[in-house]
């Protein structure tokens, strides 16, 4: 008798309201975390801020840029951006030269993330520094060294579209000078033609059939 009533109490206390609520809370928490981590698409929950336009499409793929909590390296950026930066005028080639060492103290031009942060507020072109960043080295241009640029605003160099920090090819004075006064349509257009040469005169016989009809290999 005594033992039976003991069991009864045990069962009752096991399913008392506190245990049920506690169990449900733990269940929900673990379920939430586990589901989010298992379903890779949901990793976005861990993003610390808004992702820039260019990286938005794969923002849930943390490992694309991050290795644990290590700082993001130039090598990581170059996995994708190498070709675009081939002609980088403000790149390694310039700043590995000792003559420019002093300038690097003003702006760490050798580190991508010095200007291109992520998950923070951007000012265009994936740049998180204030738009007047050029002034760190080129302030003289708007304060008297260059008559043509006198009185220009400090934040307009690139935001107005006139200058491109990494690539001067199409925006340098020399380029503009050389191409002034061209007609709207150039006399010679230079879109390459694609030529595909056939190796066979007629198509060979299709070499698979039953596989497509569900016949297996």
């Amino acid at each position, binding site marked *: 008798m005594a033992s039976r009533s003991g069991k009864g109490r045990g069962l009752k206390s096991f399913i008392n309201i506190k245990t049920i609520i506690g169990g449900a809370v*733990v269940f929900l928490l673990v379920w939430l975390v586990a589901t989010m981590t298992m379903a890779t698409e949901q990793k976005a929950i861990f993003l610390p801020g808004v992702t820039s336009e260019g990286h938005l499409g*794969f923002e849930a793929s943390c490992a694309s840029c991050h290795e644990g909590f290590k700082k993001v390296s130039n090598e990581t950026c170059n996995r994708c951006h190498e070709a675009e930066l081939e002609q980088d005028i403000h790149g390694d080639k310039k700043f590995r030269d000792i003559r420019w060492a002093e300038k690097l103290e003003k702006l760490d031009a050798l580190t991508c993330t010095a200007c291109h942060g992520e998950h923070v507020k951007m000012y265009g072109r994936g740049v998180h520094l204030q738009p007047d960043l050029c002034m760190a080295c080129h302030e003289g241009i708007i304060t008297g060294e260059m008559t043509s640029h006198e009185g220009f605003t400090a934040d307009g160099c690139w935001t107005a579209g006139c200058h491109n920090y990494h690539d001067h090819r199409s*925006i340098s004075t020399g380029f503009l000078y050389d191409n002034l006064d061209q007609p709207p349509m150039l006399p010679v257009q230079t879109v390459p033609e694609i030529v595909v040469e056939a190796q066979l005169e007629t*198509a060979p016989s299709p070499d698979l059939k039953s596989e497509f009809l569900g016949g297996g290999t």
Partner: protein
Amino acid sequence: MKKLLAIAFSITLSLALSLGLSLTASLPAQADSITEAELNEITAQWKPSAHALADVNCSSCHQDSETKAFVEKPNYESCQSCHEGETDTFLLGKHGIRLREGQTPLTPTKARIAMKPEAHSKQMNCNACHNVHSVDTYQASVDSCLTCHNDEHSLNYKNSKHSQSFLAEGNIERPSNASVTCSTCHLQREADKSGKNTFVNHNNTYNLKPRDRMASEVCMNCHGMEYAFNSIFDNELVNSNFSRPPEIHLKSFDMVRVLQEKREGK
């Protein structure tokens, strides 16, 4: 002890549930075979194609070269084995980067610009734009883009002068360099690494921004510099897909003219 048991039970149950859910989500789609009529149609598309005449047979794409196992739906790696430049650049652009990073293919739902609602579930893979059996690039040059893209610039293409050049050429297997299609500007033809062959750079964002890149690398293949820059920096003109000559005049050119006058003593 009882509380501990309850907690342990909850943890096990929730783990099992979420594991079950994620497994269900990742189950492969059931293999579906096609009818003989469909196969005949595909074979007919393939026969006169550049693939067939280059001796690219069914097994070239639909059979694993090592295990000889049948591959029902070849992925980009299959295309990459011949079209290396095209695939590598596709994987670097917005269309393909998710695949490169091991994620599910991009779908228009993830886009931040207007996309056609009926295309929302389309998955970006090589065959999203290319008919891989007929392999003509006519469809891939304009129609494929407009299957999804629904923004002002895209929709206005059909009213543009560029479009007239494409229409004038008619439905040919591969638009010539006289046609200005979506891909003429957004998926450029370039010399490959060897410099001997032309390939199509499938990184759609390669020259898109900053706009000076588009002006010099793309517009200036055909247009003079001032016309190109004055057009590309005019938002209204970009939206209208260049429906008229540019009306803005960038100050930069005046500055260079002042310099020119000084230097040449004009």
